[in-house]
């Protein structure tokens, strides 16, 4: 709008823009700065040190929780990416009985509050374990598996939304062309559909990893004594009181999530460029 560029209005817009960006980035930047501060108080500058990172690398408890987090994130991401992609293709490409119910069911985990989801999973596992014990005499308890099952339960929906957007934007006639050229269903999927939706699948997988590594509330409810993830452990530490070591752990988590964002942006760009190139040179199919 013209008013946006002139005089007082434009100046105020610029000022607001600068304030918003400062508000978004200042906390993150200051956190990184303070993680190198020698002061024992985590919010004060006391000269440069890498001591806190050293204590972090010597802390076996933290390292154990990092491994739990990574294993949970990897396993739950693989499962939810496969299931989410399958459901995206089914919903976008086919009509079948129960399609609308399935579609609605897949929206719920996206909008449901964390706390409600956590309560649901806790009650479900408690009930299911009681039942299994009575019927089969199995003595199951919460742990690694329950965390993975819960993470997959919310991640399928997110992967499915991301992949669906990609499938919807894809030209269906390419698949028909492959079928006309006597490609089997599997060949059509492997050589036509999958390469075309790959950026969406990767984007969905990265979102799933991020959400899995982010989750505190659900995991806190379904984790067993020996299977605490890093965010749950750090959350319990912060509630006891802040220390410079937590600053250092936080920066590690921050860097991990930034690598994931950068990865997702780079992958999307690269595959978009490759897709264009391939379509130009070979018409898409090898």
């Amino acid at each position, binding site marked *: *709008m013209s008013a946006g560029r002139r005089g007082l209005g434009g100046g105020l817009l610029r000022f607001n823009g600068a304030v918003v960006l400062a508000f978004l980035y200042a906390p*993150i930047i200051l956190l990184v700065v303070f993680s190198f501060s020698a002061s024992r108080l985590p919010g004060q500058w006391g000269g440069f040190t890498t001591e806190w990172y050293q204590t972090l690398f010597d802390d076996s408890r933290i390292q154990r929780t990092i491994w739990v987090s990574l294993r949970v994130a990897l396993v739950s991401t693989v499962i939810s990416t496969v299931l989410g992609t399958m459901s995206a293709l089914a919903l976008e490409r086919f009509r079948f009985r129960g399609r609308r119910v*399935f579609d609605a069911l897949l929206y719920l985990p996206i909008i*449901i509050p964390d*706390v409600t989801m956590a309560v649901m999973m806790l009650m479900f596992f408690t009930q299911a374990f009681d039942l299994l014990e009575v019927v089969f005499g199995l003595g199951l308890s919460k742990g690694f598996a329950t965390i993975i099952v819960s993470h997959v339960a919310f991640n399928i929906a997110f992967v499915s939304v991301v992949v669906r957007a990609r499938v919807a934007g894809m030209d269906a006639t390419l698949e028909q062309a492959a079928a006309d050229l006597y490609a089997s269903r599997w060949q059509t999927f492997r050589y036509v559909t999958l390469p075309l939706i790959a950026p969406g699948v990767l984007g969905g997988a990265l979102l799933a990893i991020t959400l899995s590594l*982010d989750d505190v509330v659900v995991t806190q409810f379904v984790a067993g004594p020996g299977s605490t993830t890093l965010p749950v452990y750090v959350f319990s530490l912060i509630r006891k009181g802040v220390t410079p070591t937590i600053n250092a752990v936080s920066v590690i988590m921050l860097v991990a999530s930034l690598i994931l964002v950068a990865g997702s942006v780079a992958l999307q760009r690269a595959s978009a460029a490759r897709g264009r190139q391939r379509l130009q040179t070979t018409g898409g199919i090898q």
Partner: protein
Amino acid sequence: MSDATLEQSRRALGEAERQRERSERRRGFILALPSFAYMVIFFAIPLVIVLVYSFATRTSTGSTALSDWNLDAYRKLGEPIVRNVVVRSVILALITTLVCLVVAYPFAWFCATRSALTRNLLLVAVMIPFWTNFLVRNYAWRILLSAGGPISSFTEAIGLGETNILFTKTAVVIGLVYAYLPFMILPLYASIDRLDRRLVEASSDLYASGPQTFRRVVLPLTMPGVIAGSILVFVPSMGAYVTPELLGGGKETLLGSYIVTQFLTARNWPVGASLSFVLMAVMLVSTIIYFRSGGKNL
């Protein structure tokens, strides 16, 4: 070709078509089945269990008796303690939504009126903090607001005295705004970007003042974005748990924390379950409002 054979081959074609369609349907169903089954077992059934529990009775030992069904847990919502928690959560979520709206609207407008390059950079800049770890973002504010921390030192240095807002409602609102601001900016940006600028020009050609144009033309046309953003901020703020725990210090109990307490310490599962359902109801009603107001996918 005689009419009879024509009719016959037409029928055969129709039959083949129907058969093809049936097999397509079956194929789609089989493709959806694994995740459908997963969502039913690990999402729909848990949801039903929560509903069932909300009608159950808490025994004196803190376990739950699944027999004597009643509405006690819902009646408890009318008691002052629970009512206060709910009212406080609604007020804080409303304040958070309003602050986000006031800050995000001009920012979204600013983005939408830049060149393509600047606009993309700004949007990426908004998305990056959203992708970074949620716990870390809350923790950063804990450090910033701590006594003797950077913000306090800053206000002291410019002569405003120490600020001590950690563990207050203000700190919780700051944390929530920080966490959910991108949810407000993105839908607002989308609807401002779609706005036909010629309507704004037409309005000023017809001698409408700036505020008049905004109130009568711009705001109504960008209302879908306002509603979508408000819901996307209000709903998670209502159920927030991590932010009030870390920045409110557990002093200002909000709905999310209260529910968690009912499960992990107070062991009153029916009350926890009924409150979770209230939270879900808020979410569902908001979503329906959103779709009714002409919104598309969330």
